[in-house]
């Protein structure tokens, strides 16, 4: 997939675990894991909003485009 989610890197920088983040933003761990492992087909704006708020970052910090 061309869009890469850099959630693991941002989580490492913030020192937060995936479980903790999932609890804070109201995601199931399974869905958070799908996001982290780049298996997601789409991300809702509401989810992106919650992620940016909790991680104190911009959408561009979480997403990057990679050429195939």
């Amino acid at each position, binding site marked *: 997939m061309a869009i890469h989610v850099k959630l693991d890197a941002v989580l490492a920088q913030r020192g937060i675990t995936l479980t903790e983040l999932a609890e804070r933003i109201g*995601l199931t761990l399974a*869905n*958070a894991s*799908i*996001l982290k492992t780049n*298996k*997601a*087909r*789409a*991300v*809702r704006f509401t*989810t992106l909003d919650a992620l940016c708020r909790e991680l104190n970052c911009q959408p561009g910090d979480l997403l990057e485009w990679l050429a195939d």
Partner: protein
Amino acid sequence: MKVLGKRSIASFITSVLDVAWWGIAIGLVLLLVLLAGSTFLELRGDNLTFSVPVAVQLDAPVHGASGETSAHFEKLQGNLRFPARQGAFLSGSVAVVVLAFGYMFWIVNQLRHVFRSLSQGLPFVMANGRRIRWIGLAVIFGEFGRFAIVYFWSYYTSLHFVADGLRFAPSVDINPITIVAGLAILVIAEVFQQGARLQEDQSLTI
């Protein structure tokens, strides 16, 4: 009344299909035994009979009750029952019936899987689209297969049986509605495939 899920129409149909599956499975086993026995057993008397579909043409004219109008039969269709005799026709016919049962067994099995997922409230799974497509193809090709068997049997009777005042004619019996139904099932299969893709997209949208 619920259509999908537990205690629904779908779960009722699943139960009916389960019973049909077991019935066909038992019938298939018995037919396989008969097929194996048809080459070894010696048939005596008229205990085992065949009933095959035939089409006949009558030579006798039909008159109106007043005697004024004369009419005639063009073609009559029915079944011809005759004692089975050992040989290629018996073994071949039993083999054809075994194949037909195997074919039904496979279709009912596919339907069971589809309706089981419907009774679990999961209509849009990828496997359902694939199974329904196979069922559609089976309905279409099954109709052609049925046509071929009926034609062969009526052709066989036209060669081997004679009767006063009537002639056996090879029967061309193909049902276009069944073909159209098979094509409609193929379309429904594609709808299920699209639904499964949407369901997958939905489940992977975070």
